[in-house]
């Protein structure tokens, strides 16, 4: 069975083609979903890609969270199906209430585009279960102005208690040092899961680290993990 991945396109999305390319590269079928569509029938997973949905006017992700497609995405997630939000997609997931917290302007107040190291915090999710180990360090690029993750102390405690922090920014030794934090995120958080562990939001771009011609290949681990879990759940 070849999984079918829906790539949602909001006005202003700009990593939609990249997500499509990378999932296609890894052997999945893909389909673009224009934000006015509400029918997610036949999809095995949904990607909310990076970009500047609605120009990121008002607040990043704030308007996209109210797009018609997002109600369907909420239902899709409630059914336990996989949703990954990358960069702007992570911001939209937070604004839509599918993930706790918010993403603020980077510390330093500048857009930053560079490869960063992130540590795999736990492998108990469909995004991190295949060929990954806890503590593994991945190198994946970021490209954002608003990646400074913030949540309340209670939220953070809950995320920690439920082991829902997927990735943390770290140094070469895997230490979540402050110098390795590119944007000032609380607890060096680079990506988090929802309670059902079927929704992942992350600031780094795994789709930019799939094809070795233009980047590394560490992003494959995350996207392949999704595909493997989809194929696995089908055969069970």
């Amino acid at each position, binding site marked *: 069975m070849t999984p079918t991945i829906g790539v949602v396109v909001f*006005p*202003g999305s*700009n*990593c939609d*083609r*990249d997500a499509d*390319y*990378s999932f296609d590269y890894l052997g999945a079928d893909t389909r673009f979903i*224009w934000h*006015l569509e509400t029918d997610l029938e036949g999809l095995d997973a949904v990607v909310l890609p*990076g*970009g*500047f949905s*609605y*120009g*990121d*006017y008002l607040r990043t992700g704030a308007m996209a969270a109210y797009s018609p497609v997002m109600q369907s995405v909420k239902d899709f997630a409630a059914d336990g199906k996989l949703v990954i939000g990358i960069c702007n997609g992570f911001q939209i997931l937070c604004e839509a209430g599918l993930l706790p917290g918010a993403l603020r302007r980077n510390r330093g107040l*500048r*857009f*930053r*585009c*560079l490869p960063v190291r992130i540590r795999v915090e736990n492998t108990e999710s469909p995004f991190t279960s295949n060929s990954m180990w806890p503590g593994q360090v991945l190198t994946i*690029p970021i*490209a954002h*102005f608003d990646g400074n993750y913030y949540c309340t102390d209670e939220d953070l405690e809950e995320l920690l208690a439920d082991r829902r922090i997927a990735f943390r920014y770290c140094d070469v030794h895997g230490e979540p040092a402050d110098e390795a934090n590119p944007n000032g995120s609380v607890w060096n958080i680079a990506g988090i899961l929802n309670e059902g562990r079927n929704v992942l939001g992350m600031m780094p*771009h795994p*789709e*930019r680290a799939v*094809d070795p*011609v*233009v*980047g590394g290949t560490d992003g494959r681990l995350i996207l392949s993990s999704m595909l493997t879990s989809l194929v696995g759940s089908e055969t069970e």
Partner: protein
Amino acid sequence: MTEEDLHRSLGLTDEEYDKIVDILGREPNHAELAMYSVMWSEHCSYKSSRVHLKDLPTEGPHVLIGPGEGAGVIQVGNQAVAMRIESHNHPSFVEPVQGAATGIGGVVRDVVSMGARPIALLDSLRFGALPTDTEEDQTAERNRFLTAGVVAGISSYGNCIGVPTVGGETKFEATYAGNPLVNVMCIGVAELDGIKLARAPGPGNAVLLLGSTTGRDGIGGVSVLASAAFDEGAATKRPSVQVGDPFMEKLLIEGSLSLIEKDLVVGIQDLGGAGLCCATSESAAKAGTGMLIDLDKVPLRESGMEAFEILTSESQERMLVVVEPPKVKAALDECERLGLRASQIGEVTDTGRLVCTMGGQVVADVPAESLGDGPLYHRPFSPPAAMKVRHFEPVAVESPREALLKLLGSANIASKRWIWEQFDHQVMLGTVAGPGAGAAVLRLPGSSSRIAVTVDANGRFGQIDPRMGAQHSVAEAYRNLCAVGAEPVAVTNCMNFDNPEIPEVMWQFVEAVRGMGHACEALDTPITGGNVSFYNQTLDEAIYPTPAIGMIGILPENVQPPSPGFVKEGDAIVLLGETRDELGASEYQRTIEGKLEGPLPELDLVKESATGWVIREMISRGQILSAQDCSEGGVGVALAELCIHGHIGAEVAPEPGLDPMRWLFSESASRIVVALGKDDVPELRSLAANLGTTVVDLGYVMGRSLVVEGLFEINVATLKDVYEGGFPKLMG
């Protein structure tokens, strides 16, 4: 104000006014006068430059479309690649963030209007000097502010529209303090049969305006800002700068390309300088048709706008498309689906006239062709009286070690990571090699074809000798592409000069055009288009003549570009090309002694081409592991960069027969430093010998320090700290 005063205040001369009366057979009304004033401005009409540009080499085996269209187009594999460069110098001085942002918007629309998807941006930037350790320039704070603002503008706009900024160059020189340069190059890609032209064919076809509403921003931008020098009142010109909306631009890109892909348009032109007036008259004139435009149908941002304002407004993010009547509904529906505003504002006619109505009245009625067919000037030009170039004699004020470290940390040579980290250089997944090291290498979407792109300029050289300065810039761009293994095939350019009404400035321009043409001819890199920016002057301070050369090369299949850093210990380090005692106009001279004196390094274009061939051939055989072209800072800086990028040291010996310090920092042309396996050196030697290219053994890759025998040993970590830390320190 009398009509006479009016035309002068709009920038038209009395002779130009008489010509308009001649064309119309009557006095123009206010709206018509405004239209001619913007269309006949230097910026739109190229009235001073046109006569000198017509002899440039424009044909070559890869060129599909040369100068005169929205962008030049070349063939790469089975795809078409569009290239265009534009300046936005004056707007960026008046308001750096929006000036730079809208500069991106404009050049991107030029490329989209060819039917091409924009895939990359590069910038050539010039600012006044930044604060240094030794002297505090009064303008330094403002230069810093302008630099940060322009970078923020490029970052916010380019990142949002999802087009990667993959390269460029930024330099600092006091001459640009009152007149920074912001030149933006855009590359696009289309199918071979997908290229569109700015034509409005077929009388009866509908004319649609896509994108933003039209407001009072940017009225007369091309005549007020771009075609006159600045005085103390620069700040009062702020209302002439437009405000950018990158989100609208993104919708406009997707909408325009979708209409083209669905075969719904027969002609398309962007609205840039001179706005609606330019887009309508140009596309009609080029198709030999006319146009009837109902200004009441143009969506406005504010009420009470007059006809001349609607016609000449430079509100951003707008595109004009011509659609056959049966397809109008489909085109409007597609725009609505994508959230893009679209309005039918008129139709194509067979009258040859651009007729505009408002409130049922004709408010303008002029021959469409006459607007684009502006005056042509043979401006007088003569070399400056005091042309004697001072001959530079270095005084040893620093040790070679200190000199190298000072150069590496200087504004012009230090790593510009602080700048390019603010640009998304990866989106679209085509960036094989991005900013930070020589030419950028791109993979074209939907294919395995790869191109290399660079933009280079050298104002210091231009000031000493504009003709040779332009040749050097072409040669440097050529070298940058060869050093990554690409065959250079086409050029676009942006000529930044002062006031063409001054004969000495006109002379600089004419010399630079000749130099550029000669070099492009010699190196087989035809010119596919360009942009001329005059009046780069504030308060009598003219800029150095600064032609920026954008060049594209094609990477043959299976060729692996060498690394910009050393790869492994034991590799042989070899210098291709001859080093002479040539410190004239060099970065050494600027940084260490604060001077600008000549003469320029010699340039032999036959040798340049031969060295280029040798390096490309060796790269295609897979034998060159590392390569850096030698330009600013000479062999010394090239070696340091190879160590820094590779995190490995090197041991080299200076060539005998030349003062080691001069050898280290000379900027002799046509040189590349390479590293390769020891056993491959004889092959390189014999290949080079056949073409008369000099090969000099410098030493080996080894250790953790850069050791130059008899001069110094500097730890690579120290080199890196200085090179990476220099620029952020200067930016405070």
